[in-house]
């Protein structure tokens, strides 16, 4: 009998039944976590539709479609002539193919199983699907960390908690909602899996696990540029361990296997190619690799020589090696054998660097430093459980704990530098938070201990003890209830954040009708689809680079610049065309071969992310290349204000961007004064009606004026400049209007005479 009552009336359960039960419980927990993870990412699909979000995912989606429709080799050799006109982009060699290959493999697999699911749905659902895997790998990671510690030996609580936390933590969800088909969607899963196998291989000193680590590292390299984080985390871990005097052959085995295999594998990715041996991002991993060779060599001497001898030997040895290494580094950088320190690298250390030197990096909102509030917003109360979890790791300084500590420190720093790197911090916060909560549960919610005490109490009953026990119980209860409250609150907060902040596709905007019912503002797709339907297939559309991927993905038209900001000069050229006056802009646009110009204008709707608000970045970027022609200062009034009404500076009023935004804006308001609802400025009706545009013709404006599309007019047959013609027409129009007015005045007289 598996379950029975013994003589004393206690319930006895067979061990195998208990094991099965345990497995069942854990499986059901895993399934519920998966449901929670997927479910909380589906807000946008339910509220809107199964659609690709934001900007970069549109490129990934387009690339995936290319991969699915062509062969893998064609994909790797893909030269895209529909972007960066007229330069084109060697797309196959400048992307991380991991994401696309993943979805293509899934798609093919499903096809083989005769489930021809639309590739769009696969790409939309990829991030939620991988989030469940992230929960699993975080569970394994935490379990690996905790299982070796004294406090949590054979205790799965922290592991399960960490899986639960990561499943719904907003910091991670922000990049993995359904439709957010970005590299990060699978990269975090791979990050945690790589780390899991890494600490496992360090623990066991196993070549096998180190090889698996390098395989996942390879997958990570193929998927996200952030693989550099792993490339530096692992050597740092080893380095710290060596400094702590913890060197043993396990470190050597795992690290060298990982490094040798991982580096060679990462070089298989065309975009990475030789950077592991040339770029400075990888120098630390190489350095530690060399160091380990020396250390194992030295370690051999250590076993042979006396401590004193060894010490002197080491000093001599170390000096030589260090100086040699430094000299090599300096020379290599000087001769250009290894890449110079890149801008993004500097901006990691000096948050102000980008703003001053590379406006194009600074112009991206996700590259801004993180505000304090967003730590709480993205991690909720885990953020204050986090330090305690790190402290617990200090208490239990195993190799794995040291890894967690290093990750925490690095992750916190990077998350503070760039808002997007909050993503890499989130997993470790979940792990540390789970350690904290796990500890609390262990102390205050240990039923076994309680039962034991109760048993003992039966035997010697003491009144005094009872009181202390009672107070003890109350304090325990208090803490437990608080903790449970916070857990509930965490879930509530996460769902709230996911639903309100991170589930907007940003292609489709939600709004409300006057009666309060939900409405959808679909201007972007309206305009992109208009482009797709009603322009020549080879027409070139000029827009600010933010919209490049979307135009490529939805409108299927050639763009000049896009979100793959590889050519700053080209972007500056587009910026210049937008920020100079019509005559000069026409010259630039004709040279570029522009057919259509697309601007985003939120003034009517109150959409603050429009081009006029990004205008300063266009000016700054083009000023970096053409300081004589574009000057940021001249777009501000004497008082230093950014004005767009009648008091705006002449540069502003003349600029193409300004004119494209407000062209015919006055007509909408008929005789009232038009108001720009984003910048809260009022243009007078007379002034607004005078805004004219000669080189461009309005061909489309979306329903809420969010997107306006202009066509560059044909050159005049008689060689006159378009601006001249426009001026002439306007002056004639003015005259005819006057004469018309005279006529209408005359008419009554005529009538009287008849």
């Amino acid at each position: 009998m598996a379950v029975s009552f013994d003589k004393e009336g206690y319930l006895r359960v067979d061990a195998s039944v208990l094991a099965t039960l345990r497995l069942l419980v854990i499986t059901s927990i895993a399934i519920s976590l998966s449901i929670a993870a997927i479910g909380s990412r589906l807000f946008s699909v339910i509220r809107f539709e199964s659609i690709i979000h934001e900007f970069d995912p549109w490129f990934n989606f387009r690339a995936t479609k290319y991969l699915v429709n062509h062969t893998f080799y064609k994909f790797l050799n893909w030269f895209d002539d529909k972007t960066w006109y007229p330069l084109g982009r060697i797309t196959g060699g400048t992307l991380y193919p991991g994401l696309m290959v993943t979805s293509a493999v899934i798609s093919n697999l499903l096809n083989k199983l005769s489930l021809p699911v639309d590739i769009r749905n696969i790409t939309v659902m990829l991030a939620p699907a991988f989030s469940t895997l992230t929960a699993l790998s975080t569970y394994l990671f935490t379990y690996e960390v905790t299982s070796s510690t004294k406090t949590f030996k054979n205790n799965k609580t922290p592991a399960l908690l960490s899986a639960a936390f990561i499943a719904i933590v907003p910091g991670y969800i922000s990049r993995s909602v359904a439709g957010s088909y970005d590299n990060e969607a699978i990269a975090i899963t791979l990050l945690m899996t790589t780390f899991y196998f890494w600490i496992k291989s360090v623990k066991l000193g196993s070549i096998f696990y180190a090889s698996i680590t390098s395989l996942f590292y390879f997958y990570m390299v193929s998927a996200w540029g952030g693989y550099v984080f792993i490339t530096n985390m692992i050597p740092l871990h080893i380095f710290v361990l060596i400094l702590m005097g913890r060197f043993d052959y396990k470190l050597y085995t795992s690290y060298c296997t990982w490094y040798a295999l991982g580096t060679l594998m990462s070089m298989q990715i065309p975009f990475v190619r030789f950077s592991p041996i040339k770029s400075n991002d990888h120098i630390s991993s190489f350095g530690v690799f060399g160091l380990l060779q020396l250390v194992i060599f030295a370690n051999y001497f250590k076993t042979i020589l006396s401590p004193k001898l060894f010490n002197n030997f080491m000093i001599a040895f170390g000096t030589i090696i260090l100086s040699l290494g430094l000299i090599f580094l300096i020379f290599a950088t000087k001769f250009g054998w290894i890449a110079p320190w890149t801008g993004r690298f500097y901006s990691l250390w000096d948050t102000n660097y980008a703003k001053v030197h590379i406006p194009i990096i600074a112009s991206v909102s996700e590259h801004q430093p993180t505000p304090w509030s967003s730590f709480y917003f993205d991690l909720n109360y885990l953020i204050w459980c986090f330090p305690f979890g790190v402290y617990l790791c200090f208490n239990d300084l195993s190799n794995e704990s040291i890894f967690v500590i290093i990750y925490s420190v690095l992750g916190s720093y990077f998350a503070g530098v760039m808002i997007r790197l909050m993503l890499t911090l989130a997993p470790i916060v979940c792990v540390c938070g789970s350690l904290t909560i796990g500890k609390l549960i262990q102390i205050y919610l240990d039923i076994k201990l309680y039962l034991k005490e109760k048993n003992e109490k039966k035997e010697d009953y003491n009144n005094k003890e009872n009181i202390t026990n009672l107070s003890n119980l109350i304090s325990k209860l208090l803490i437990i209830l608080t903790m449970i409250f916070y857990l509930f609150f965490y879930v509530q907060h996460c769902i709230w954040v996911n639903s309100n902040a991170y589930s907007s596709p940003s292609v489709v905007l939600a709004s409300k009708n006057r009666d309060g019912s939900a409405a959808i503002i679909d201007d972007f797709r309206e305009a992109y689809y208009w482009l797709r339907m009603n322009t020549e297939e080879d027409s070139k559309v000029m827009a600010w680079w933010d919209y490049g991927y979307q135009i490529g993905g939805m409108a299927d038209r050639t763009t000049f610049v896009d979100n793959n900001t590889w050519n700053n000069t080209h972007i500056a050229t587009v910026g210049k065309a937008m920020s100079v006056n019509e005559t000069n802009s026409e010259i630039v646009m004709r040279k570029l071969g522009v057919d259509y110009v697309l601007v985003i204008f939120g003034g009517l709707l109150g959409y603050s992310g429009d081009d006029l608000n990004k205008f300063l970045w266009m000016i700054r970027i083009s000023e970096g290349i053409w300081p004589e022609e574009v000057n940021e200062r001249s777009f501000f009034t004497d008082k230093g204000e950014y004005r767009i009404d009648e008091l705006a500076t002449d540069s502003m009023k003349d600029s193409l961007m300004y004119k494209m935004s407000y062209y015919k804006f006055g007509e909408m308001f008929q005789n009232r004064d038009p108001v720009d609802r984003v910048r809260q400025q009022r243009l007078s009706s007379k002034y607004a009606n005078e805004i004219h545009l000669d080189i461009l013709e309005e061909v489309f404006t979306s329903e809420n004026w969010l997107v306006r599309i202009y066509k560059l007019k044909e050159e005049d047959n008689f060689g006159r400049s378009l601006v001249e013609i426009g001026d002439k027409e306007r002056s004639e129009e003015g005259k005819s209007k006057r004469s018309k007015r005279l006529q209408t005045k005359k008419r009554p007289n005529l009538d009287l005479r008849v």
Partner: protein
Amino acid sequence: MARKDVKGVKKVSVKEIPAVEKPFNKSTTTTTTTTTSSKISWYEELSKSIDTALIQYKKDLASSRRLRLIDTFLAFLMISGIVQFAFCILGGSNPFNTFLSGFGACVGQFVLTVALRVQSFDKNPEIAFGEYIFASLLLHFVLVHFMNQLA
């Protein structure tokens, strides 16, 4: 709490250190040389220590066939790597990926073999050897793929 910390560390290190030294200690328990180093010069001291190490190494080699095999292989790999590197410097690095895969094969195989060497006196070297083969296959699969890729 601080005391506890130290305890933890000690405990770990006590556990771990024997494992570290095992491969080298196996047959070298008595040979640690005790020298009076204060009088002799730096250079002499250094050469002496190298000498002692060499003697010990030869002893180790003589005692194990497995070590001899591994070390010969290591020497071969090292020479092969040096030759390739020299060729790269003298004869030019083009095509670079071919050089890299050749050189990478030497370095990669070298560190894997060293990893095998340090594990070869472990509890179960068969596991280590199996893993070594797995990793080597992986390495060479990657390298063969890399060799002919145009940069």
